[in-house]
């Protein structure tokens, strides 16, 4: 499947885009991709929300010689779970990211220079509001489904509560209705590592010389939280990297050390340090319960009108299954029926990208039944 990036801009000085923090943006660019065709009834549009370091490039290839397809290519395409023969799939890069949508590295129209840390603080709610502008631009009235894993799942939940009449169904995967202290803690350590890098320069590092040390350490830490004890045992054990015995030095001896180094190095080539700060902060601030009148999750979810299919993974310790059960419980308190599956997996948080064989039938069957009820409505 060959796909291409598309762009859309909105907001102006007169009609600025208001953010939760009180500030606003006078121009917002949105990079997005779409796969499949919107049908005449406009009841087959599905929004895919990406995770922390993802992009709009969810499926297919930009050119025949692309080494890798989009990040959820196994799930999206002709005949796959998000079947592009049936559904019109949209994925957009989130606000504050560095893959085409406005973020800290964008040029501020007022100053003519990159925002860097003058970029206003953004939230999951703001990200969803940007997607809502895109929705209007695409002339879609209601999503058949909004789906996403991890930070993408947070966006899906926010959609259900912020725009109840524009979401027919919601598929939050490996996620939570609020960022836990564990996640906030890991995010903090990651950001501290970036901010204390001498190249950080209060976010004003020139392009091409970002705080690579700090960003790579942030990535190494974060990467481990996406794995599990069992997956690390299986993948690395105590195997040594290109040596027969330990060398009694601090350089990398173990395969896991070398692997993490590699992950860190790869990451600094593809991601921006300031964007990492802003998006992790947005994640920290996410607490859906605050949307409720009495600041409870049940009150917040009472606003939603859609059917939910919630999926967690047994070995996910970053967004543990109990956090998905909290969503299930809050829905039940509202007398709402729902679907919840806790998939047995050793793959940790990353399971939402890896356990395709189990996830695929769940998603495709749920979507099919939602399309039926959407058409009936």
């Amino acid at each position, binding site marked *: 499947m060959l796909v291409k990036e598309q762009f859309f801009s909105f907001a102006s000085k007169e009609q600025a885009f208001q953010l939760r923090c009180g500030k606003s943006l006078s121009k917002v660019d949105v990079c997005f991709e779409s796969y499949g065709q919107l049908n005449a009834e406009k009841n087959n549009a599905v929004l895919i929300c990406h995770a922390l370091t993802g992009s709009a490039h969810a499926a297919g290839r930009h050119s025949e010689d692309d080494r890798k397809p989009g990040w959820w290519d196994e799930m999206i395409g002709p005949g796959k779970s998000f079947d592009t023969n049936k559904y019109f799939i949209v994925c957009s890069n989130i606000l504050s990211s560095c893959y085409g949508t406005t973020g800290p590295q964008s040029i501020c129209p007022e100053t003519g220079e990159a925002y860097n840390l003058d970029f206003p603080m953004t939230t999951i709610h703001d990200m969803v509001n940007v997607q809502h502008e895109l929705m209007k631009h695409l002339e879609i009235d209601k999503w058949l489904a909004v789906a996403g894993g991890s930070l993408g799942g947070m966006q899906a939940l926010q959609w259900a509560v912020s725009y109840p009449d524009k979401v027919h169904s919601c598929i939050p995967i490996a996620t939570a209705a609020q960022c836990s202290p564990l996640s906030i803690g890991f995010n903090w350590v990651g950001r501290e590592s970036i901010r204390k890098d001498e190249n950080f320069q209060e976010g004003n590092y020139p392009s091409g010389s970002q705080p690579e040390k700090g960003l790579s350490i942030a990535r190494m830490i974060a990467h481990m939280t996406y794995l599990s004890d069992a997956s690390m045992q299986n993948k690395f054990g105590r195997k040594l990297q290109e040596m027969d015995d330990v060398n009694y030095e601090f350089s990398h001896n173990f395969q896991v050390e070398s692997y993490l180094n590699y992950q860190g190095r790869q990451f600094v080539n593809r991601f921006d340090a300031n964007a990492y700060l802003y998006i992790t902060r947005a994640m920290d601030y996410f607490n859906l319960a605050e949307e409720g009148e009495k600041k409870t999750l049940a009150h917040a979810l009472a606003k939603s009108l859609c*059917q939910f*299919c919630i999926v967690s993974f047994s070995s996910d310790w970053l967004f543990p299954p109990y956090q998905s*059960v909290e969503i*299930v*419980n*809050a829905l*039940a*308190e509202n*007398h709402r*029926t*729902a*679907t*919840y*599956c*806790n*998939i*047995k997996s050793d793959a940790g948080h990353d399971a939402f990208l890896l356990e395709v064989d*189990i996830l695929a*039938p*769940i998603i495709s*069957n*749920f979507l*099919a*039944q939602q399309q*039926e009820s959407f058409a009936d409505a």
Partner: protein
Amino acid sequence: MHKQLLDANFSIITSLIDKKSRVLDLGCGKGKLLKHLKLEKKCEVQGIDVSQQEVIDCIANAVPVLQLDLEEGMSFFQDKSFDFVVISQTMQQVHNPDKLIREALRVGKKVIVSVHNLAYWKSRLQIMLRGMMPNTKHLPYEWYNTPNIHLGSIRDFYSMCEKEDFRITNVCPGGEHFLRSFNKNLFSEFSVFTLESL
């Protein structure tokens, strides 16, 4: 449970459930009952099952299902938030059947419990003649690998209901024996009880 008995159990339970009611099935399996109630009786349904495979099959049957362990309680359901709570062939597989039924009575206006009868005459005969746990086509397990950890008889169930103050408002004896209504404890292979709060 054997196919014929399952069918009999299925039709007794569906006959007891009103159209357009809210139904919770505890241990719903692949969601066959709920699918039927949803399509034929326009019920609003919710299943719960602990097994991943059963849950995936439920989703394929377009039945809303929660993968949860009933033993961990269901305090998140509001009092009387369902018209019917079904406990079909599930009671004998949990550690605390009395707790499960009490919780079901809190959540549902009516609770429908299908009870397997270990005192069915054929089972009695097997115990008497073989001196071993009954192992029939209806209970195709060895005593050491059966999921049915709390088997009892119809009289055992009556006795629990009396002790625990569960009010029985209806009983349908099931099975093929023509005397099953005459003596449920001897001739019904299972019975479907309707319970209501006092």
